[in-house]
């Protein structure tokens, strides 16, 4: 896989698939200069076609899941997915609610799981770093 592409600066696309905003404000905080994600070469991509990493938050209701699948297809390879927060990992408090699919890995392949409700910005950056390390090792 064209791993060398992502070694430069992986751009992140943040996708809210039915989250409560908790994760989203922490993702937003993690992407500001206070936590400085750009030292990892990471910045927010405006469009799935520009992105290398899709950061999914939220419990994925049925409509959002369809959109996530479409966004994943639009993202050029190599691409990676980070499931951020309890809801994207297991459904969190919304597990078994009628409109939610409740796991991001039921829709797209997930590479890194960042737990927490919501995860701290440091945890989100740590998840990104883990993914980048794995990519650098050629995984």
């Amino acid at each position, binding site marked *: 896989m064209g791993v060398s592409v992502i070694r430069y600066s992986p751009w992140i*696309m*943040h*996708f*809210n698939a*039915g*989250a*409560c*905003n*908790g*994760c*989203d*404000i*922490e*993702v*937003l*905080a993690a992407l*500001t*200069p*206070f936590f400085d994600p750009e030292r990892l070469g990471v910045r*927010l991509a*405006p*469009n799935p076609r520009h992105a290398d990493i899709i950061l999914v938050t*939220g*419990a994925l*209701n049925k*409509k*959002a899941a369809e*959109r996530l699948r479409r966004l994943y297809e639009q993202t050029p390879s190599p691409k990676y997915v980070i499931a951020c927060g309890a809801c994207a990992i297991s459904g*969190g*408090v*919304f597990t078994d*609610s*009628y*409109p*939610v699919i409740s796991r991001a890995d039921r829709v797209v392949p997930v590479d890194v799981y960042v737990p927490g*409700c*919501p995860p*701290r910005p440091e945890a989100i950056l740590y998840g990104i770093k883990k993914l980048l390390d794995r990519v650098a090792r050629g995984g």
Partner: protein
Amino acid sequence: MAVVEIPIGPQHPALHEPIMLRVRAEGEEVVEVAVNTGYNHRGIEKLMERNSWVRGMYLAGRVCGICNAVHTQVYVQGVEKLMGVEPPPRANYIRTIVMELERIHSHMLISAVMAEIVGFDTLFMLIMRDRERVMYLKELVTGNRVHADIHILGGVKRDIDEVRRDRILSELRVIEERLKYYRKVFEEDYTLLKRLAEVGRIRKSEALSHCLVGPTLRGSGVKSDVRFDDPYAAYSEIPFDVVVRDEGDSWARMVVRLEEALVSVGIVRYALEHLPQGPAVPKAFPRAAKVGEVVSRVEAPRGELIYHIVSTGGGNPYRVKIRTPSFLNIINTEFTYLGHRLADVPVIFSSYDPCISCTERVLVVDEKKGVRRYVSLRELARWGTT
């Protein structure tokens, strides 16, 4: 001239009611806006009926991550009424402190987002930096940065000790200083005035007839604040002003928010200095409620938040109906976009505080040529202003 249809959305990534704005524009002028909701449905009201009273508390907080403490407050104060539990005064003060810290960070967040939307990125970064101080204080009091989860039926989970109190007071001084500076920037900066003043004007009569709430209503000269009109928690004992502005435009709404954040700093300070002695953390709480129903309301950062809780007795609610302020402010303000330029749409939309993040895309459909292309909301905000 061809009418161009521009759906903004349909997914609004950071909004707790993700939404679609279908904008029809003739040239640069907006001629019609239709709002379409129904995305990001998580079935919370139905889940509430299945869960116990205590688990419902956590669910209520997760309706919205930005105003989670007020959601928990409105649920808990309703359930406490049904159960006949009265929280001790110290617990009420601590709840108030957490809710006001949340209001400060929420108002700072939307001010930062507004700065970014109009293209003032430096201000966005500065406000986000100082917002981290508030998040730190929230963590100091509750143990969590975002989801406070400090409420429990009949009290709070954590008490505030002397060391924490002094730390908060000293940090508040810095935050107040910075907020005063940002208010000055919003009041005086040429760029912000150019983009915000006279944009999305709502007259007093329109605000009332369209059932708007919160800073949007107060920005149009109506003095209405649940904290003041129908005090809950410790607000009846704390002196504070209700901020009102008469201009009614996007600028007035933003200045109302920044001034409110300053008022909130005063409330937190007063509450900390007059913290009543006594217990705050209950040793036990009831698990079952009596038969009855209750309507409870609070002032969320975005306006009046109402829960209607019905109990038929037993361990879980029969029905919980939630009405959030953003719902009214977004759905009922379609008329404010008309006649404005396309680039003003994101500004007006943000001035209602729908918590926008930066990943929305806008689909531009040129009906004449049948061409579709995606542009980001940020791009749209800068469109046609040069």
